[in-house]
């Protein structure tokens, strides 16, 4: 089972509860903004501690409130592509890409810098600083940085929201190739029905009011 999640958490004074099991290549968390989709990604990656519940990814328990398991983010093997990308502004594209690179990622995705560059078409950007990149370029660098960290799964938070239509098509194709060629399980957050239907094999609906 790629994702086995059953948790409740409090964010901004509101209770968010979600429960899903999925073995699909791409699992989507779908719902209106404010439903807590991003909070669930943060909980899976270890950036946010749920009030209670259990999170298992690829059969490994990352968080379990009854068994007192709570792995820190750096040991969860979750590549995270943030909605606001969060490229390191003081490092070149190359340094960003190699930040989390490991020679031996264990069971995680094994990828070299030139492979990732060819896969994403970003070879020509290596010497640039992040602030000089266009939106689509920065998006691909952020995806590359997450892929190179040797992740077991990839978490994508609204990866298409900030892009215009042609760029959106481009990044959507990249996600499909991660799914089909790299076979890396993905958990995707989106509020766009079309995007979810095209990419995801399993959709978790997150309505606005959950108690």
């Amino acid at each position: 089972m790629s994702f086995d999640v059953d948790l409740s958490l409090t964010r901004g004074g509101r209770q968010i509860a979600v429960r899903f099991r999925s073995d699909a290549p791409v699992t989507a968390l779908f719902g209106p903004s404010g439903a807590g989709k991003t909070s669930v990604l943060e909980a899976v990656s270890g950036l946010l501690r749920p009030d209670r519940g259990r999170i298992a990814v690829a059969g490994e328990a990352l968080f379990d409130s009854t068994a007192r398991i709570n792995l820190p983010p750096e040991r969860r093997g979750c590549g995270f592509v943030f909605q606001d990308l969060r490229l390191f502004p003081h490092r070149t594209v190359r340094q960003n890409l190699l930040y989390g690179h490991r020679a031996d990622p264990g069971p995680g995705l094994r990828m070299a810098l030139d492979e990732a560059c060819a896969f994403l078409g970003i070879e020509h950007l290596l010497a640039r600083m992040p602030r000089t990149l266009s939106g689509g370029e920065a998006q691909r660098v952020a995806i590359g940085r997450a892929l190179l960290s040797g992740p077991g799964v990839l978490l994508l938070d609204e990866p298409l929201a900030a892009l215009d239509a042609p760029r959106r098509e481009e990044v959507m194709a990249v996600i499909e190739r991660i799914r089909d060629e790299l076979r890396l399980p993905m958990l995707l957050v989106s509020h766009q029905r079309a995007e979810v239907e095209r990419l995801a094999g399993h959709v978790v609906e997150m309505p606005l009011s959950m108690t």
Partner: protein
Amino acid sequence: MLSAEEWQIVALSLKVGAVAIALTLPVAFVLAWVLARGRFRGIVLLDALVHLPLVLPPVVTGWLLLIAFGPAGPVGRVLSQVFGITLLFRWTGAALAAAVMSLPLMVRAIRLSIEAVDTRLEQAARTLGAGPWRTFATITLPLSLPGVLAGVVLGLARSLGEFGATITFASNIPGETRTLPLAIYAALQAPGGDAMVWRLAAISVVLSLAALVASEALGRRTGMGRHGHVL
């Protein structure tokens, strides 16, 4: 141009300032980090204590140092009996006085720059496999560097200008604790000291300007153009 005595005063001032900053910087960074990121009761009190030397009359700060670090003081007794160190009337005492006086300015500058570091970047580093220490060394520290440099410049300027706490705690001893401001004060008192006052005051201006220019250049070298201005 300068007499041997005046060169010696400049050298002593720089030594006192450098040692004071070296002493204060790690302490100031830790305090700044705690004040910027800490979430605990008593943080307001800690903040107030750190800022005390900024608002207290420097003579009072010097007197408090005298009480604590003097031969009969709780810290002074341990230092002299266990380590054989005395600070009173020594250049090390002048450095301590300068360090205490520059601490609040350094903490303020560094704290502002730590607060300006985007914690979302630190989160990103964690998801890429970096533990808390590597995240600190590769993200938090380099991004707060302009503020650290600003703190060093402010602290150094404050150290070179320190008068009240130094004269109270370390006294005004030629060759030992007579830094630039104390030498200027002594020259003002001495008959025919005018020329020396002019020269020492000119050196003070040059040193202060040099510190500002150096910090500006360093700020630019960190490669973050718009953050280059540290003051």
